[in-house]
């Protein structure tokens, strides 16, 4: 999975986090787990495993895999672990001997290849990506082509990467692959045409209408525009920048560069408009601070000194204000932790200013969250915190469930203990039989109400009676008394509750440590941002001083120190 896609995935997770959906997600996953997994026919279980894995529900897949499955399906097991961010040593899975013994299906070969590629071993990865793999569906074919191309690029074989993509039909994966190829061409080749062609193909292939696909198109347009601008073709560059919608996260960069392209075309007014429009966005978004500095610079260079002065003063004020915001955020992180300030929902009054909409569309918090997420280590840490929080919420769910079950079992025990011991089994059976007789009498009386609500209620009652009878006879048939079975259930519940409580304590302790580290990392990242803003502020003030000095010089008579005459 590309870092870009991973980030989008993470952002969607974070948004779930921010909206308190984690518990819901966990509950939903656990409902899936509550299936008859452990005794079901193996064919069905295999299909269920495939379904959960292909739906990217890796935790559910891991929970379904018992010891037998893990031995028989090491590729699926290792893949699910890797996808769930568990550290892997591939040797542990004895995959090579599995490959020799089993006639691997194409999808297993592909998974095997991904395992090696994600471990940084493209050579072995490519070994499992040989051939056409026609049995794979269109979507998997695209992913396969993407990873083949990615490996060839990493190994420095751009031509082979292009060949690998020639069979990619269309779709987001193929578009991502072409985009990556274009970036590689830009980094390694002086001939920008190849990069532009790859970008064009990427755009053509990206036909899907969806969040990540649309953002990919925006990224393609931004980069194509950059290439044209860098090649001195501002008109063509703007054709691409104009395509980036205001709702895109790339709009601020696009607006900034759009302004420069307009300046290239001597259209000063349009340039200023683009930069001015950018000032509605959060100052820390890419290109916004640069727009703020570009405005007075261009006013000044174009001879509008007063406007330049005003724009410099405004820029300096805005940078100063942002520095104050930054200090406040750092203090809040120190006080409450990065998780509370930047990631999760919070009702704290002290954080409300940070959550209010201030920019064109998003809160300041989104801009800051986006900024810290650009750091690889912060990103990994946030992902780990999310996964653990999700598991931790799951533990809470289980404690609740065990509590409910325990109450129910206690109630059953109480009822059972209410009967004299010698007759309790027979009493229970007698009560069931009496209920049956009463039910039959009622049925006869209400026979004329066929199709009515009463009939449905009777059918429900009948079904419940049958279930109770079946459960009762099952517990008797197994040779255990109901009382004994209930006691066993309660002791098992107590044991599990203890395990869950211990695990919950450990998980909370680890989460606290992770949270502390995350806060440190975020503060480091914010310090780097602070240094950048200070630099921008100084640039604005320097610009202001330069203009003032120039004005002062032009208005003051200077004396030639050599001959004492005025100049």
């Amino acid at each position: 999975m590309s870092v870009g896609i991973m980030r989008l995935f993470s952002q969607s997770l974070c948004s779930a986090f921010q909206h308190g959906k984690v518990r819901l997600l966990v509950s939903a996953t656990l409902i899936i787990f509550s299936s008859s997994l452990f005794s079901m026919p193996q064919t069905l279980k295999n299909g269920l495993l495939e379904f959960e894995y292909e739906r990217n529900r890796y935790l559910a897949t891991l929970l379904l895999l018992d010891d037998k499955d893990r031995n028989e399906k090491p590729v699926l097991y290792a893949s699910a672990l890797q996808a769930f961010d568990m550290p892997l040593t591939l040797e542990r899975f004895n995959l090579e001997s599995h490959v020799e013994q089993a006639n691997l299906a194409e999808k297993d070969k592909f998974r095997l290849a991904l395992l090696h590629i994600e471990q940084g071993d493209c050579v072995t990865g490519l070994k499992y990506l040989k051939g056409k793999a026609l049995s794979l569906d269109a979507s998997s074919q695209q992913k396969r082509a993407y990873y083949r191309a990615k490996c060839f690029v990493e190994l420095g074989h751009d031509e082979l990467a292009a060949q690998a993509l020639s069979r990619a039909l269309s779709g987001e994966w193929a578009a991502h692959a072409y985009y990556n190829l274009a970036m590689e061409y830009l980094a390694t080749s002086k001939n920008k045409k190849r990069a532009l062609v790859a970008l064009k193909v990427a755009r053509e292939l990206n036909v899907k209408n969806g969040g990540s696909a649309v953002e990919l198109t925006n990224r393609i347009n931004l980069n194509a525009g950059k290439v044209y601008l860098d090649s001195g073709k501002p008109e063509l560059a703007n054709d691409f920048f104009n395509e980036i919608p205001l709702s895109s996260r790339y709009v601020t960069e696009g607006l900034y560069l759009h302004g420069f392209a307009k300046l290239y075309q001597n259209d000063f007014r349009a340039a200023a408009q683009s930069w001015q429009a950018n000032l509605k966005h959060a100052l820390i978004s890419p290109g916004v601070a640069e727009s703020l500095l570009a405005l007075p610079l261009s006013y000044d260079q174009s001879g509008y000194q007063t406007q330049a002065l005003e724009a410099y003063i405004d820029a300096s004020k805005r940078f100063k204000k942002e520095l104050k915001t930054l200090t406040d955020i750092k203090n809040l992180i120190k006080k409450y932790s990065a998780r509370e300030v930047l990631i999760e929902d919070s009702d704290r009054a002290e954080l409300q200013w940070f959550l209010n909409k201030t920019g064109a569309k998003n809160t300041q918090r989104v801009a800051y969250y986006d900024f810290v997420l650009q750091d690889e280590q912060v990103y990994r840490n946030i992902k780990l915190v999310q996964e653990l929080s999700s598991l931790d919420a799951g533990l809470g769910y289980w404690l609740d469930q065990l509590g409910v079950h325990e109450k129910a079992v206690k109630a059953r025990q109480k009822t059972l203990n209410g009967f004299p011991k010698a007759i309790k089994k027979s009493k229970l059976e007698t009560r069931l039989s009496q209920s049956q007789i009463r039910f039959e009498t009622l049925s006869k009386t209400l026979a004329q109400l066929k199709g009515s609500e009463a009939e449905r209620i009777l059918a429900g009652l009948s079904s419940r009676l049958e279930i109770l009878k079946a459960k009762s006879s099952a517990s008797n048939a197994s040779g255990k008394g109901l009382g004994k079975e209930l006691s066993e259930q309660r002791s098992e519940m107590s044991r599990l509750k203890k395990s869950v409580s211990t695990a919950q304590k450990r998980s909370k302790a680890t989460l606290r440590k992770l949270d502390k580290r995350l806060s440190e990392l975020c503060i480091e990242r914010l310090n780097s941002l602070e240094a950048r803003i200070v630099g921008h502020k100084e640039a604005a003030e320097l610009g202001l001083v330069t203009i003032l000095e120039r004005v002062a010089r032009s208005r003051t008579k200077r004396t030639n120190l050599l001959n004492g005459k005025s100049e």
Partner: protein
Amino acid sequence: MRSALLSILESTRTFILTLLLALSFSHSSFGTPSDDALNKEAEALKQELIKLNQELTAFEQKLLYPPEVQVSVFLSLSDKTTFRLDSIEISVDDALVASHLYQEDDISALKTGGVQQLYIGSVAPGKHKLSASFNGQGASGSYFRRKKSLTFTKESSARYIQLIVSESPGVGEPLFKVKQW
């Protein structure tokens, strides 16, 4: 004015190049040994929590759905079928017990050999009626709704019912089969 613009363009070029580098650069800090230790601790915990979840699941299943009353319904899709499943509704003894709206990812997972569990519940021993309503689009693009019913007998062991959507060769009409395990 012209020279001013030229000078802007000169400085702009440097400015843009710097910006391009700055914008595409993603900061990356390096992990410390204490980070490694913390990561290992978190990974070990994750592993432990997965095991614990498995135990809890098995226990709950035993408690809620003993084999004497358990019935589960599954769905699979033939990889060659052109039928586009939109939704499904499952009824047991004429009471709606489960429904699902299909997304592209669900269909794709089903077509690669996945089997979806649609329902797990309890029924009394004896005869019962299971109905499944399939809503979707056929090969011609026309919408249709097809109902498939089955009478099954619940005995002492758990009952697994698999609904299979395939396609009649040549005609292209979707076929709905039921398999009892």
